[in-house]
């Protein structure tokens, strides 16, 4: 949104999803809608994905969260050691917080739902490629829930990491309410750049925070 339109090389994208039909659909839409991104490969299983990503070295991997034999988190773990520069964007139909949080914790730069429009998907890909984090309202909700500071929640091991600052919480709340960065910036009287900083810092905390394992929290939540 803040980027200036200028001709540049298309962003190379790799698709990982165990449903061939879905891959074909995304591929068609991405190829037809814009020159900004170019799909360089796709895979339907963890092993295939790891091999394909290592071979094609894409800039962005669109990663399905729910897959047999380990899911997106497993792909992330196996690829990140070799190719730390590849950026992952989780793309899921899953409603289960534990799935999504697991992939974010493993190092994905963002999460969008599969019902996202193609235009927004392209925008999200461009944003993660530039190093920004992409939070869908739903992910913002999951993260807020994970960091919720309620009586009876998990003890804090590292206060620095395990708490969100009030500002971060505000930003996250507005994200969950469906606000765009620009709207958040004007709402909180800060610059878009600052919003991006806050979002990145929330993502970093999500990935590093202990908080008695965010993903475990997520599974606990389903049992309550």
């Amino acid at each position, binding site marked *: 949104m803040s980027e200036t339109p200028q001709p540049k090389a298309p962003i190379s994208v790799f698709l990982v999803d165990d449903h061939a039909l879905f891959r074909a659909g995304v591929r068609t839409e991405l190829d037809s809608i814009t020159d900004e991104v170019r799909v360089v490969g796709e895979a339907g299983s963890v092993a295939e994905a790891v091999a394909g990503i290592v071979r094609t070295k894409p800039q962005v991997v669109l990663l399905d969260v729910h897959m047999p034999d380990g899911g997106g988190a497993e792909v992330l773990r196996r690829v990140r050691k070799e190719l730390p520069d590849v950026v992952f964007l989780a793309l899921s139909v899953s409603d289960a917080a534990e799935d999504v949080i697991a992939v974010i914790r493993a190092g994905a730069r963002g999460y969008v739902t599969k*019902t996202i429009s193609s235009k927004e998907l392209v925008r999200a890909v461009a944003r993660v490629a530039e190093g920004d984090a992409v939070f869908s*309202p*739903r992910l913002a909700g999951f993260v807020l829930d994970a960091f919720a500071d*309620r*009586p009876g929640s998990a003890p804090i091991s590292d206060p620095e990491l395990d708490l969100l600052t009030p500002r971060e919480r505000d930003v996250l709340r507005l994200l*969950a*309410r*469906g606000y765009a960065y620009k709207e958040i910036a004007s709402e909180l009287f800060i610059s878009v750049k600052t919003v991006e900083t806050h979002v990145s810092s929330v993502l970093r905390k999500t990935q590093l925070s202990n908080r008695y394992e965010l993903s475990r929290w997520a599974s606990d939540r389903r049992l*309550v």
Partner: protein
Amino acid sequence: MDHVQEEPRTETATPLPRPAGETAVTAAAGTELAEPDERPKLYRRRSSRIVAGVASGLADHLGVKVLWVRAVFAVLAAFGGAGLVAYGLLWVFVPQQRREEADAPSTPKEKQQAIGLLVLGIGLLVAVGAITGTINGWVAVPLALALVGAAVVWREADESQRRRWREGARSSVAGVVLGGGGWSAAIRVLAGVALVIAGIAVVVLRSGTLGQVQFALISVLATLVGVAVLTVPFWLRMVRDLGEERRARIRTEERAEIAAHLHDSVLQTLALIQKQAEAPKEVARLARSQERELRGWLYGPAGYGAPKNVGGGRLSEAVATACGEVEDTFAISVSQVVVGDAELDDRLVALVLAAREAMVNAAKHAGVDEVSVYAEVEPTAVTVFVRDRGKGFDPDSVSEDRHGLADSIRGRMERNGGTVRLRTAPGDGTEVQLEMPIKAESGGTR
């Protein structure tokens, strides 16, 4: 190798040890293994049988008269009971004919002959035994009694067990023995058991000395153990079949349930979508409602994949339901995010209803196809934001037609102690913020 060996029907291919001189039986058993055969397969007859249908089945199989087969068994009985043993083994190992393929019933004459031969066989056995001294007369009679009793019990179990395989299992020991045969079956089993006991008792009473009692007991025990060992594979197979059948039934039921659900929901919707392919708005509405429904069924707290029922009346469910209703009614998409959860009470129900009204307003007046709903449960209050990016309006110029906002939202919230905040401007979309305080103990669940 196996199938090559089976091809020629040889006398040596018997699966069981057989008494000497049993050529007819041996040949029969051999035939059963050899598949390519125009002869009828060896089954025990269901109809026109006297004891277990072995003789008539064998006669069918070999293509000879039943009378001759029975006569051979009777004569063989004289040779140390070989005929009886052969008959017993065939009874155990030859499957019974299926009910569908029943034969013509036997004539009364045939039946009389058969009974006569049966008595003759037993008589021969006892007589020869007595003459050669292998069996004492006073042992033979009770022994025969016991055997007949055992045969009756066997026959009952045999019959009922087939029925169970056919009809499926409600397992219980009594059920296995009686097999739902009712009183007559029970009486027959009891009579058989009584006969066995009577036979044993006679042996025990007639033998004066303790040594003989012990001998009799040991021999009876040995016989029972022998029978048990002989029939182990048989019982094992039955237990296994019952378990297998139960598993298969559970699988089938589960598949049927899934198939029924998919049929009622997904397939019907897909059919509708095909018919309405020219109306993209309708297609989107159908797809959305179907997705929500299927998702609820798969992952939802009351759904198919749920570990257990969470119990009714959670805030998150109520919000989801309200969003779904608005989606369906107005053909717009409502994206909802709920942070935290709480038990519903009167105030929260009012809150959800107010939120629903706000969504309806957005759907009706904003002219958008997407509305965002965000609900957050905090320790002291629940907040709900309903937001659209539509036309917006000037709150000061709200006319009489906006009853919804005045009554359904503001009125409802204030009656329950909540507050409403409204942010809107023409061209800037609308956001309704609803806040409802909650009691400390009911809030803040994770």
